[in-house]
């Protein structure tokens, strides 16, 4: 089967629990047990208070579309998703922001709006790799 996107790489030791969670359909996020804040992308310590006292929590998968673009012309041929499609910056309910695509939506700025509520869709690329996409909240 042809993979429609570049496989995320290089997977780093500190991000492995995140990618392992994806395979099980869970959005696992690093949370600081000292200051209580969740961060993303995963690091060896909390970027807010620099504590190494981290744990992993399962995110709700809900958030809002913080910002977006509509890509009409692919810059990277390894991404085989046919344009136009929506490049998305998601602000998770837990606080951190991440990049993804907004799917199951008309790629039109009249339809796609900043701050619209979104929810996660787990997209399996291969047996070993699942990535988070988002769609308008149902």
């Amino acid at each position, binding site marked *: 089967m042809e993979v429609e*996107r*570049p*496989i*995320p*790489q*290089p*997977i*780093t030791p500190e*991000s492995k629990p995140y990618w392992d969670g994806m395979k099980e359909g869970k959005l696992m996020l690093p949370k600081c047990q000292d200051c209580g804040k969740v961060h*993303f*992308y995963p690091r060896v310590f909390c970027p807010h208070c620099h504590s190494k006292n981290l744990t992993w929590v399962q995110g709700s998968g809900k958030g809002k579309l*913080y*910002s*977006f*673009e*509509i*890509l*009409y*012309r*692919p*810059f*990277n041929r390894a*991404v085989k*998703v046919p344009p136009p*499609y929506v*490049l*998305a*910056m998601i602000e998770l309910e837990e606080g*951190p*922001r*991440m*990049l*993804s*695509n907004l799917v199951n939506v008309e790629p039109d*700025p009249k339809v796609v*709006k*900043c*701050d619209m509520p979104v929810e996660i869709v787990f997209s399996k*690329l291969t047996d070993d790799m699942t*990535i988070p996409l988002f769609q308008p909240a149902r």
Partner: protein
Amino acid sequence: MAERNAMRELSNSVCIVGVDESDEIGTLPHKSQLALHLEAITNAVRDAGLKITDVDGIFTAGQHSPALLGEALGITPRYVDGTSVGGCSFMILVEHAVAALHHHLCDVAVVSHGESGRSGVGVTRSRDTSISGQYEIPYGFGAAPTYFGLITTRHMHEYGTTLEQWAQVAVSTRAWAALNPKAMYRDPLTIEEVLNARPICYPFTILNICLVTDAGGAVVLTRADRAQDCAKRPVYVRGTGEGTEHVSVTQMKGLPLSEATRISGQRAFAMAGVTHSDFDHIMLYDAFTSGPPIMLESLGFAKPGEGVHFFANGKSTPGGSLPINTNGGGLSYTHSGMYGVFPIIEATRQQRGECGARQVPNAKLSLVNGMGGMLSAAGTLALSHDK
């Protein structure tokens, strides 16, 4: 306050004494990236009335290390700096050169840029994808427009900025390019043409995005006492500032404004002992039409959302009350990839009064500000022919 006073001591201690582009800029499939560096350095050193053998400090960013430039020039520099944090690196390198010259770590510094951005001649493609490879590239991110558009769309959402207002930046910049014989595109442009151009990545059409060219540029600096003996009128580095906040746009705390830009401006103004209203000429890094207004807001020239007003009603255009991007910018003059050296070259020429048809009358204080990455890093300079 101790820091601020110490920086005041650096103000006016160093001058820009030579600037120039490579022999030609534009589409140059017959020239290597290294050749563009060497042409620019040779031309800028000649502009200063100095010799290559006078250069003992090499400052550069991008693929080639300062060691390679020294070797190619056949000189043995005693001070090198290869800080590379994106297109504004050359502005930041001016600050580093000021510090090195001030402390006599070198006597004649060259800040050099060469990039075969369009033709890719003598180029090694490589970049750090340790974070973006995991979290960004799989979704189609990677090229600059795929990130800067996120900042731009959020700005439109928060402040009601419109596509027409961004387009006005392209129109203003093209009016200046029409007066610069070296500019790649010189025909007049209308807001409608920008809006109706080929869509690339909403909110950008192709005319909201900078050119992709081959070009070199270099800046020669020396201490103010020695500068008086150089060929041209010295231009004083009155203030410098830099800041670096993030690499990924997801880590940008003040989005859609830039914390790195704010910090760099604050430091440069404090060192120069100037305020916003003292500037009569402005050079901003225009990789995208939305960049300059957002920079003006981040620097405190305009309230959030009001930077676009600087481009309205001809204010920023030839004959306007506050000229911006008088070389025609990355949007219409040249943009090789790391554009940051070119605004410094233009500001120096404006302060010398050698810009001909596009000369800003009585320009006394130029602001140079640019970004590296996606407003990730920033450099700010205050340049003047007068102390």
